[in-house]
């Protein structure tokens, strides 16, 4: 059985199934992170004092640059497929995966420094919301890496069988990845700078 509209657009929406599907999923993700940002606002407004300088701004800035870089390599991975350049696609997708890994390694060292100093989520309200927001974001990074790993590995075979469908799947992966980057673009100033 062939699932329709995986490549060609539906006549009513003008979109392939996966494109609308990923945008609907991202809409739900906006609500998920929105709830936590709302929590942050409420906690901060209700607090008598709020800690400053607990997080390393240089490390946060480096992680921001890494994630923005990974967004560029992700969109280039898709663009390379549109230009029928399989080799460049593989290079850019692998680079995106590596940048995501570096981000997580930095996060690990950041968490380790705080946890060894006894500054866990129960240390104060700021750290509680910090670990919740960045922990959930980190899990989303891992999820994206699993998908990228699949398309670098066994999923790559779809390029030979149906290149248009494979290109669309990379596009949807990219949309998810750009959203993860977008969340961090707001997380960094909110947690590290304000």
């Amino acid at each position, binding site marked *: 059985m062939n699932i329709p509209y995986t490549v060609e657009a539906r006549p009513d929406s003008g979109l392939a199934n996966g494109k609308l599907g990923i*945008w609907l999923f991202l809409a739900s993700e906006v609500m998920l992170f929105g709830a936590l940002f709302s929590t942050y606002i409420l906690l901060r407004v209700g607090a008598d004092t709020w800690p400053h300088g607990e997080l390393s701004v240089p490390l946060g800035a480096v992680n921001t640059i890494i994630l923005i870089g990974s967004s560029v390599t992700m969109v280039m991975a898709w663009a390379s497929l549109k230009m029928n350049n399989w080799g460049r696609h593989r290079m850019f997708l692998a680079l995106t995966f590596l940048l995501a890994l570096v981000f997580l390694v930095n996060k690990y060292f950041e968490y380790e420094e705080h946890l060894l100093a006894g500054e866990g989520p129960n240390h104060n309200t700021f750290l509680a919301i910090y670990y919740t927001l960045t922990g959930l974001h980190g899990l989303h990074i891992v999820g994206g890496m699993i998908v990228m790993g699949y398309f670098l590995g066994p999923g790559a075979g779809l390029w030979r069988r149906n290149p248009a469908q494979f290109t669309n799947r990379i596009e949807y992966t990219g949309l998810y990845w750009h959203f993860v980057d977008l969340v961090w673009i707001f997380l960094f100033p909110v947690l590290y*700078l304000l």
Partner: protein
Amino acid sequence: MHPDSEDVQKSVRSYMIVFAMLMVFTLVTVGVARLSFAVPVAIAVALIIAAMKGAMVAGVFMHLSHEKRWVYGTLVLTVVFFAALLLLPVITSLDSLATGNPWVR
């Protein structure tokens, strides 16, 4: 090559320009945070810069600048519910139980 590969080739230049601008805005964000603004001003400036960066990622990388109506419709609904999500807890803290003012309904 795909039929629209030439369009994609032209887009590559805009991806690089947006990347450079995102780097600049990240440095500006860090630089501005070092200035001793009043808290409301600091929050406003940081969020405006973040919103500009987000708009570039959404508009160029996520191709939202030329998407179909169904995607825009989904996002408009999302914005409405997101605004409610942010405002509802704030509104609940303004009632008489929270403020202790019996004249506030």
